[in-house]
């Protein structure tokens, strides 16, 4: 008997334990990832200045996203002597770099530029993804810098790219009571600004075509608000339709084959679909209210718009071919200028409550409303191509009040003013350039 018990006792010890200690971490820190971007190596003597300019743009893009923080170059222990030189990871780890960018730039005599870069994870001492090489004319160095930054940003954050994109907006000059408004286009960071219309035209509400090669907008040049489409490169423009009514808020569908707009007739404003090639139109909403500010869902199947059909200005969603509209905003105050996120999961909007304006986001069923900004006048949100950032304009109060462009992360963090030569309003973000 004793032997048996002993055996059983020993069996319990002899059985191997498969115990695996498992712990769960549910809280983390919220802070930008520290990244080291040492000087880019100039592989040809004439590329030194260019290498530094590209590095500066890459760093500005990444830091501007709010998700990364650059470790000051004065803190660097190592330098990158050559693109292929071994990396002293310990030197980068000591200064708490999470990621390290190495890059080189060379310039041929015919001004052809070669930019190579790699991204490393310092802790694991491994390359993240593939290194890339861009060959392009020197004149495109800013776009190449944005593309390098997009690659790094995408790999580190999991978000889509957005630095290589453009903004079309209304540039405003002069005193408040006699302001001249011009249609303008620029890189997302305010560089390479170009004016598309003269100072005598009154233009409002520009939007890009899906391939960002055209801009559709409302102009008063015919004496009443009409819809025009302009080719961004050539500057040539055409009036989309000669309908006698006042037309506002035109937007291209994601496939570029349809335009939806507001048509004001006898004091009533409804949404219409318009074929931009034939000029054929059909009415989408029939109500005694003002239906305007439409925005397509990314798949083009639905439209979100604002309407005061229930008394106050609210946000509604309806099929893009027409049909019953469903109200999604039910909070206090009024809601306007809804814009569907390129991700498809959120609607950005302007909210007016208690004499103040807010930019906010909500899920497409109206839940999870979050207000991101608040001021005397914040209006007209537009999404970055990756659905992570919103740009809008903020107008200051008073006789000298004027609008400027701002961007904010969808977390509500990282509010930044976008630098423009003059006042600016009504921004619209393109997709990532092709």
């Amino acid at each position, binding site marked *: 008997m004793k032997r048996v018990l002993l055996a059983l006792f020993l069996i319990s010890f002899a059985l191997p334990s498969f115990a695996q200690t498992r712990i*769960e971490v549910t809280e983390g820190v919220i802070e930008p990832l520290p990244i080291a971007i040492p000087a880019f190596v100039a592989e040809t003597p004439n590329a030194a200045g260019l290498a530094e300019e590209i590095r500066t743009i890459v760093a500005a893009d990444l830091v501007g996203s709010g998700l990364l923080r650059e470790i000051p170059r004065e803190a660097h222990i190592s330098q990158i002597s050559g*693109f292929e030189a071994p990396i002293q990871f310990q030197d980068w780890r000591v200064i708490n770099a999470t990621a390290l960018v190495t890059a080189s730039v060379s310039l041929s005599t015919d001004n052809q530029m070669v930019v190579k870069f790699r991204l490393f994870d310092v802790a694991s001492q491994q390359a993240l993804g593939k290194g890339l090489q861009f060959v392009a004319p020197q004149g495109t160095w800013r776009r190449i810098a944005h593309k390098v930054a997009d690659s790094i940003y995408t*790999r580190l954050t999991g978000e889509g790219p957005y630095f290589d994109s453009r903004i079309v907006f209304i540039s405003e000059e002069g005193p408040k009571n006699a302001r001249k408004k011009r249609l303008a286009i620029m890189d997302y960071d305010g560089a390479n600004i170009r004016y598309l219309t003269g100072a005598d035209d009154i233009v409002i509400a520009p939007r890009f075509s899906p391939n960002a090669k055209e801009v559709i907008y409302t102009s008063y040049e015919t004496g009443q608000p009409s819809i025009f489409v302009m080719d961004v490169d050539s500057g040539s423009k055409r009036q989309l339709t000669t309908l006698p009514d006042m037309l506002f808020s035109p937007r291209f569908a994601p496939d570029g084959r349809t335009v939806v707009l507001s048509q004001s007739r006898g004091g009533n404003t409804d949404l219409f679909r318009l074929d931009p090639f034939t000029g054929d139109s059909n009415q989408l909403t029939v109500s005694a209210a003002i239906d305007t500010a439409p925005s397509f869902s990314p798949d083009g199947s639905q439209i979100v718009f604002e309407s005061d059909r229930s008394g106050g200005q609210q946000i509604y969603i309806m099929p893009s071919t027409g049909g019953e509209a469903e109200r999604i905003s039910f909070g206090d105050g009024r809601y306007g200028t809804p814009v569907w996120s390129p991700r498809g999961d959120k609607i950005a909007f302007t909210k007016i409550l208690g004499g103040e304006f807010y930019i906010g986001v909500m899920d497409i069923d109206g839940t999870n409303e979050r207000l991101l900004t608040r001021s005397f006048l914040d209006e007209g949100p537009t999404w970055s191509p990756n659905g992570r950032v919103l740009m809008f304009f903020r107008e200051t109060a008073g006789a000298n009040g004027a609008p400027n462009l701002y961007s904010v992360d969808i977390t509500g963090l990282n509010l930044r003013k976008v630098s423009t030569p003059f006042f600016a309003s009504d921004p619209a973000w393109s997709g990532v350039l092709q």
Partner: protein
Amino acid sequence: MDIGLKISAALHVVLILLALFGGQIFRADDTPPDVVTTVSLISQGELALLAQPQEASQPLQSPPNTQPETAEENDDPVLPEGVPDEGVAASEDNLGELVAEEPDPEVKPEAADVITNEVNEKPDPVVQEAPVETQATEATEGEDQPDEAQEATQQEATTTEIVTEAEEAAPTGAPVRTAIPRARPERPIPEPQPETEIVEEQPDTAPELSVEDQIQAEIERALEQALATEPSTEPAGNSDQGDPSPVPLTATEANALIFNIQSCWSLPVGMQNLAELTVVLGIDLNPQGFVDGTPSLVEPSSLGRPGIQQAYDAATRAVLNCQPYNLPVEKYDAWKQLEIVFNPEKMVNR
């Protein structure tokens, strides 16, 4: 006779109890059953899975082992090759128009070498790459937007040189990654050891044999085995065979470890699907509290889902940046292998 009968009856009872509750008794209290299946026992299917992508997993594990310090560049290629996940694929797709990959499957070299070789080998790199560029640009223009004259700024072209393999990256992407850092090879390799397996399998096998015979055989075998391996009474250490069940970490010790790691865990909030980016990392620790090898992705089974690559990276960074871990040496057996769940659900609306 009576005694024999009683013994037999008692043993029957014991055996039945063992069959019913043995799993729970001999299992660590806080270990969920699926952990045991996934971690300790590797089925033939899993083994086959592991065997399949062996080419991918090899390079992934080898680099850290081979030359950690001297040839950092050797590490470069390894990850790129083994990381054809969604995130990377997406970013490279975006650049795809500008990028031409240089396939050379044979040459084992790393991305770094490829760049060098390529640049060096080509008599005049600039001239040679220009065609690649135009070709790439034309291709995309054709596909994406049949367009009129491109502005000069849009004519840039690119090449990826860096990657070594001529892989059909798209289709193989996710599965290849499955084989990633499985950092604990020894344990899973399954040669069916009756002594250990039986306890768990018993409910199935017991009825087939004569119970008494089985009990006798069991007792003899267990006795032999237990006596052979028995008395290692000193607490922890290098106990590869027959170690006593490890003394678990106390709640305080485990909490300290969690607090330590969460101070190093930084995940970009605001990601679209943050709540679904829970990852479980498996790590091996040496007695000094440093991570041995590359942390492995225990769950999910692949990096294919968008964002999982970044979640895995963030978790790996947290684990590596927080080392060494100051844990009680006498309980080494309890923490030499850890599974750490990184669950960002609570960080969603930060």
